[in-house]
């Protein structure tokens, strides 16, 4: 098997890279073991949310200019601010081609509400999570109704509201709660307490329930002008059904990202994979890259679990297998390693300094910053410390950034995937 570009890992980073390469005419394949961090994410793309003193960043690009100057090893510094901007525009346009619309706030970050009722600065959100009408209603201090489905245990409106009300921004905002109950679909055996966001999303996806849901929303929300619900307003038909519900109720309805499985993240995943396939890319799902062999200092081929002895060759390889969470990095008694090719890691400190004492530390844990070391062009080093020139590492596998502490996970994944693609396209002479 022979490709121009073979990408290992089908998260947002690998997919961005693949779509860019394939649309430039390179024959591209993406291999991915299981579903990616998108399914566990908020579905918003964070660019840079906090500065080094933990203050909120409002103008991310402006801040990045200064930040990349001070942090020369940071992935954003490797890409350069202009490439970061281009990458995000590319992502937005790609999603738009799949009819998934992103709210674009130009140069500014906006906030999305978390399921816990805290506010997080982010750069791109789906329009059902943030848009201008929501912003305006908020500025008018309009009354909000936070609704939940009875039995859905991954969201507690009362908790969310009590946290929201602690926030300066929500001063003088009236917030009420209410509950929706399941439309009857003739299955008395089914216990609503078993439902997860995906089950509820499927109810919203079914047109015949919308009238009843709309009635319930109207009743429960009363005179509130806008209604917040956990993000489960459909998967395939969410756009149309969201509009219908707003029309039927006369209210603004917006979605709050939920605990996994993340419907918002899943919409992104769907759109990106569909785009990649439409462009003619080959996606090999459910298979794991086990290793590869070098020839004359470059990576010659990799092999996988399912394809056994078949060698998958490419002119360029991209490793975007994610961090510890996705198996791109592993830690065992010997320390931390990159399991596919044993690439050189950033210097790691003794194990007892890996974690912060608080599990949900807002700065993130020190181990978040561990990862694969690369050159400024994102080329990794082999175990002996030699640069591998036909290979690029992108996304959460990279060292020297802190996705949680900086609020930069999605942005780094997208920018580095895009930046690697640019270099591969150039190297292939396209």
């Amino acid at each position, binding site marked *: 098997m022979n490709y121009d570009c073979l990408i290992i890992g089908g998260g947002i980073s690998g997919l961005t890279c693949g779509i860019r390469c394939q649309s430039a005419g390179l024959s591209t394949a993406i291999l991915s073991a299981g579903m990616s961090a998108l399914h566990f994410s908020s579905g918003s793309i964070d660019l840079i949310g906090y500065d080094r003193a933990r203050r909120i960043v409002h103008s991310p690009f402006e801040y990045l200019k200064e930040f990349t100057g001070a942090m020369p090893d940071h992935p954003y510094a490797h890409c350069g601010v202009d490439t970061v901007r281009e990458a995000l525009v590319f992502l937005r346009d790609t999603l738009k081609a799949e009819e998934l619309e992103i709210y674009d706030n130009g140069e500014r970050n906006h906030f999305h509400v978390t399921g816990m009722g805290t506010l997080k600065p982010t750069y791109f959100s789906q329009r059902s999570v943030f848009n201008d009408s929501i912003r305006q209603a908020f500025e008018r201090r309009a009354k909000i109704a936070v609704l939940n489905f009875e039995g859905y245990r991954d969201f507690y409106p009362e908790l969310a509201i009590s946290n929201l009300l602690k926030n300066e921004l929500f001063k003088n905002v009236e917030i009420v709660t209410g509950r929706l109950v399941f439309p009857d679909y003739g299955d008395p055996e089914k216990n609503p307490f078993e439902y997860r966001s*995906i*089950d509820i999303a*499927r109810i919203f996806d079914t047109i015949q329930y919308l009238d009843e849901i709309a009635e319930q929303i109207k009743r429960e929300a009363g005179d509130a002008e806008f209604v917040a619900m956990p993000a489960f307003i459909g998967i395939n038909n969410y756009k149309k059904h969201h509009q219908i519900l707003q029309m039927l109720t006369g209210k603004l309805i917006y979605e709050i990202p939920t605990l996994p*499985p993340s419907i918002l993240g899943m919409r992104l995943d769907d759109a990106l994979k569909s785009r990649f396939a439409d462009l*003619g890319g*080959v996606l090999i799902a459910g298979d794991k890259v086990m290793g590869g062999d070098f020839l004359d200092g470059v990576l010659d081929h990799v092999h996988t679990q399912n*394809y056994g002895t078949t060698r998958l060759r490419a002119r360029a390889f991209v490793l975007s297998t994610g961090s510890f969470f996705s198996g791109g990095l592993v830690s065992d008694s010997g320390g931390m390693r990159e399991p596919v090719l044993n690439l050189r890691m950033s210097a790691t400190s003794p194990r007892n300094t890996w974690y912060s004492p608080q599990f949900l530390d807002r700065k993130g844990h020190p181990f978040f910053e561990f990862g694969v070391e690369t050159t400024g062009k994102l080329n990794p080093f082999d175990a002996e410390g030699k640069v591998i020139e036909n290979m690029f590492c992108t996304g959460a596998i990279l060292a020297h950034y802190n996705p949680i502490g900086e609020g930069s996970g999605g942005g780094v994944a997208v920018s580095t995937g895009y930046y690697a693609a640019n270099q591969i396209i150039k190297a292939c002479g396209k």
Partner: protein
Amino acid sequence: MIDLENISFDHCIKCTVCTIYCPVARVTHHFPGPKQCGPDTERLRIKNPELLDDSLRYCTNCKRCEIACPSNVKIADIIQSSKWKYFKKKFRIRDYFLSHTDLIGNTAVKYSGIMNFFTALSPVKFFLDQVLLIPSKRIFPKYARGTFRKWFKKFARKKQSAFGTHVVYFHGCFVNYNEHGLGKDLVSVMNAMNIGVTIPRERCCGVPLIANGYIEKARKNARFNINALRKTIEDPGTRIVTTSSSCAFALKYEYANLLEMDNSSIFNNLNYITRYIYDQFQAGNVPPMKPVTIRAAYHSPCHLERMGGVIYTIDVLRRVPGLDLQILHSECCGIAGTYGFKKEYYDVSQKVGSALFKRIEKARPDFVITDCETCKWQIEMSTPYKVLHPVSILARAFEK
């Protein structure tokens, strides 16, 4: 007793990703989905089989949940084995009829004219629908006249000895009883590549038997096939191929994982056909091809996807000059073997497929290409397009 070998359900991190990608849970609220039917309730069933839930029957065994799972849980295997371990066996003539393909096929090909005529008649369809619970909307694959084996013996076998290299061809029931054309195409493609074909003794691979809970019969067939195939590969270089992706999947994976049979003696020699052709092409054995100027949309069957074979088909097809190939975003077609032939699942089956049918319509191809015979039935019944097998495309390209 808890089988310590099969506790992959313990690796489940409860993320529900599998349920998102289950094509059945997507279309019916009556199926709680792989997470709940697999890892969540397996621990309960182990304790007390009474806790079995009837909704398990909705699972089509497409394995898409396993592809999506980030923790490598063998979800579909758990569900299948629970189905036949815990459900009480009830004899159903329909399920017997649908799953005993050898028995029915052998009879049907003798009377194929009458059979095809009858299964298309509306009173018969009415009877099938009302009494046997086979939906009248379902179009039956036509039976051929005689078997492929007979044809092979009479017209092809002699010529095969002229070739130095041989491949063992497990043709499966579909080629034997319904579609000789594909078997003939396989022989002509192999011969064009200077490879002779031999056909081993074989029985139905067991896919429909497994799906309908005839596990002992499936094991019997498996034992027969493993033995028969092992004998054909005494020379270790010999390769066995199938033109049905589901037969290959069963022979390689369902035998070992579900039926718990030792198939290691044939495992490495056996592959779905495009893998073999790919290897031949890699080794330089590429006969001249003439352009096949058609626009085709390729649909990848669930089981080929699970086993890892799609890239070979795509690679082989991409070498055919003139073939304008569009790869469809991977979706289940919904038929899942005999599942779509059952009245109680017919609507679910069609709903599952609807996303794929829409993509096909959008692609506006001349033909659809796929590796699996039941996907072919489903697509031909549900869209206006005719479906070809990759081997038949090659046969056209190699035609002198």
